């Protein structure tokens, strides 16, 4: 087991190894999901520090209950479900911040701006394309930020994380028809918000 290359192991088998006490399996799961989970939470709550706390809480909750993982679920569904539930519970208790990739609007000093700035992982190799994509991305991020949190969660899971409708229904504990309605409404609102970009 020590020589097993965990990068090629399925999520399900990684959970089995983690249940047997393999720290390497925990770390591999963490490596696979820390960005998707953090991104989902950040797009929901719009606050870097809070997102980091919630993402951390998600992993701690998942890992400390790994022995109870029900293999009939997908691991991704389980972790996204816990992350979105934590984010929604938090949002119900506080007013959401506005989106900014360049630091929190509540930052009062340059240090605070820097510490709350979001680091993005480019999916493009070309720096010019990355800058253009970043500008377009900022517009889309703002538009996503104006959506109701349920629409926001559904649209991010569908189009950013690429999850199938059935899994989104499982993650959000909603009927499939409701999820499709949410996504349809979210798309309509996004198109309206992004009309000036001719989307």
């Amino acid at each position, binding site marked *: *087991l020590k020589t*097993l290359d965990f990068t090629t192991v399925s999520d399900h*088998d990684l959970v089995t190894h*983690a*249940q*047997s*006490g393999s*720290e390497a399996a*925990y*770390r591999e799961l*963490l*490596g696979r999901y*820390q*960005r*998707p989970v*953090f*991104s989902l939470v*950040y797009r929901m709550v719009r606050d870097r520090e809070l*997102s*980091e706390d919630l*993402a*951390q809480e998600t*992993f*701690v*909750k*998942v*890992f*400390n*209950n*790994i*022995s*109870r993982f*029900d293999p009939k*679920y997908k691991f991704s569904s*389980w972790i996204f479900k*816990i992350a979105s539930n934590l984010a929604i519970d938090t949002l119900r208790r506080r007013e959401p911040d506005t989106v900014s990739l360049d630091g929190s609007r509540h930052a009062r000093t340059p240090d605070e701006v820097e510490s709350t700035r*979001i*680091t*993005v*992982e*480019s*999916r*493009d190799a070309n720096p010019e394309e990355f800058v253009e*994509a*970043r500008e*377009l*991305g900022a517009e*889309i*991020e703002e538009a996503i930020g104006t959506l109701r949190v349920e629409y926001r969660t559904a*649209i991010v899971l569908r*189009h*950013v994380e*690429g999850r199938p409708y059935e899994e989104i229904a499982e993650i959000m504990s909603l009927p499939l028809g409701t999820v499709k309605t949410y996504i*349809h409404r979210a*798309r*309509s609102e996004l*198109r309206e918000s*992004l009309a000036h970009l*001719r*989307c």
Partner: protein
Amino acid sequence: MKQPDHSRREFVPYPSAHLPDPILEMLAEGTLPLEEQTAAVAHVEACHRCAAEAEGYRTMFEALAQLPHFAPSAGFSDAVMARVVIAQQTSPVPAWATRWFPATRRGWWLFIAALMVPAVLLGTGVMWAFSRSVVPPSVLAQWSVAWLRDATWAGVSRVVAWVAESGVLSWGQDLITAVSDVSTGVLVTLAFLLAIAIPLSAWSLVHLLRIPTGKTAHA
């Protein structure tokens, strides 16, 4: 008079009106069923407005898919792992024994297949014997019961004799005498019940000890 069939959704192509938004979305997303997709594509090729709408959705979906993943801070992993209680080896199978078990799902399938081969061969042999009337089923059943009874009795007798000869449990002589008076059927039943009860209780104990007392996270 023939009644219309409402069980099947009737597909109506889009001869004149514009495509509704859900159809345009599914077309742009590539999730439209083939039959509808063919009709929708034909419509879009002839309708500039619908073509522009579908292209708009496609552009938006591509832009959403290009959104970057945000990275947590550098110390995120360590902060998480510092709060995680690594599950200890809780398998009822000892660690030295696990190396003899397959580590992957594929390995397990091969393992099961390897076990199935002798079982299938044995079953085939039995079926063949029955089909050839070499051994009538009733004779085979009687022989099996007799063999099981003799083997059980021999085993029990050997254990009892060993305990009696050991001298360590001299206080058990009365018990052995009492057991000797018990019929074979009762002894076989007792042995059978114990063979089930002991592993069951051991499994229950292990299972109870491994479950933490926290809240279920699936809820």
